[in-house]
């Protein structure tokens, strides 16, 4: 995967849970990802999928992705073209799920300094987010090597396809 990601920021608040990202009523009735992804972020902004364009980023506050273990949450975000999720902090299972499907989830304590519409450049390898609107730079929390190994290969399935075995 590309280690430099560039896109526009869409801002969300704290405690965005998986029912807001993809409500259970859809997750448990629609198994086709194209159809399911139409409802991505519907609980917070029903028009999100119309407004955003492929490559855009989600920037959120604390505890992004709390709630259920549903992998459909990061899957629908990846499917509609969200390139990265930046948050002040993540709920544990959402974080692991994102990495495992190859969607970069990066923790940045300074995410609050980013405004909606900012053009961001995320450098995963060097752990920096550049804000191209005001030239500010924000540090990403270091990505553990076990996580990087999976993410940089495009996720767990991609890793296995490439290396013929699991990382462990």
């Amino acid at each position, binding site marked *: 995967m590309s280690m430099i990601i560039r896109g526009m920021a869409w801002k969300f608040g704290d405690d965005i849970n998986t029912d807001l990202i993809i409500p259970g009523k859809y997750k448990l009735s629609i198994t086709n990802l194209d159809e399911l992804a139409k409802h991505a972020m519907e609980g917070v902004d029903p028009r999100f999928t119309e407004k955003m364009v492929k490559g855009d980023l989600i920037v959120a506050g604390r505890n992004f992705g709390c709630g259920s273990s549903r*992998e459909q949450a990061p899957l629908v975000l990846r499917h509609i073209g969200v390139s990265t999720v930046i948050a002040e902090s993540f709920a544990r299972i959402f974080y692991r*799920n994102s990495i495992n499907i190859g969607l970069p989830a990066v923790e940045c304590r300074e995410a609050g300094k980013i405004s909606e519409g900012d053009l961001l450049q995320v450098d995963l390898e060097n752990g920096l987010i550049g804000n191209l609107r005001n030239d500010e730079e924000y540090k990403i929390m270091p990505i553990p090597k076990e996580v990087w190994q999976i993410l940089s290969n495009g996720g767990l399935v991609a890793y296995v396809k490439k290396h013929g075995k699991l990382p462990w």
Partner: protein
Amino acid sequence: MGKTTSEKIFSQASGRDAYARDVVIAKIDSAMAHDGTALLAIEAFEEMGGKKLWDPRQVFLVLDHVAPSATENFSMVHKRMREFAHIHGANFFEVGSGNCHQLMVESGFVQPGAVAVGADSHTCTYGGLGAFATGIGSTEMAAVFLSGKLWFKVPETVSVTFEGSLPHMVTAKDVILGTIGEIGADGATYQAIEFQGLTIKQMSIDGRLTLCNMAVEMGAKTGIVEPDRKTIEYLANMRLEAEKTLVSDKDAEYSRRFEFDASRLEPQVSCPHYVDNVRPVGAVEGVRVDQVFLGTCTNGRLEDLRLAAAILKDEKVEKGVRMIVVPASRSIYLRAMKEGLIEVFLNSGCVVCNPGCGPCVGAHQGLLAPGEVCASTSNRNFRGRMGSMDAEIYLVSPATAAATAIKGEITDPRRLQIK
């Protein structure tokens, strides 16, 4: 340096001397997926070239989230899971068996000291038996299906101590809601929570499972209660012997400590739309409800049904309100029938549905219309969780749920006479 229960479990499961913050590769003792998560896991397993499960005896597939299936689409999910379980020889729980977490504990598939993973966030429930149990995603589950192993960061541990006896009509659910109100929705992210103190020692296994079930609502990786005589008896009833009861050392290191006085605890209510929006019942008494739901992996156990039935006996659910009861498993349903609890529910006007997840996940059996209010014994009140985005969910104990059903508005169960 002393170790916490989690550090001991991960030391054993990884074969190295593990402490908090270490990353370890741990051997998995049981792996569970249900109809909401198994399909993705099966697909990822096959995409990874999986031909056989690492140990079919340790793999559990459960139909509970939409069971019996409500749509043709979901019937295909069920079909696929049945076929997969059959081909690979995995343990399989058919429609109507119960909800996955209750089935794992009551069937004896979780031992104290074990590492259990489930493709469901409430897998942490099994900590009530002293296991390290945590929720994972579907792709990771596929990796576990293949290898029986997974990487973990050994968590730091938060100690939550309750001393004193719980007052009349104050339950394990109130203990955990009160705790969540204090610690917050992300107050224990990535950490384990150990529940300690006299209140917990006095608590039944059913109550301990309720506590640990909601640890994830504070972001925790798991909740754990030290296994003791009650745990050993619980297993003995299933003719199982507790093989490794690991407990924290006296000098174990905790990241934070919380201490509460259980004797002063009141019934608690988690208000819309966040689980940590917790208030004492007095603050929300009088809120009108349209639906009351008793059940789930949080509060669908025998003790919960007994308490609600004791309150509902010779009473009627208020006109204009429907109360839905979903026993957590078939064996609980049967016991409740033998004890006459189901009769009490039916006589008071409740709907009793088959064991499973009920309407908790917003799939079937009682979804909410816009503007409706539900008092639920489940574990999440997120906007849109049980149907309409414009409905409201209040999380309550089984006692508060029953009292609320009788009055048609959120009611302090301490006000009602028990017959």
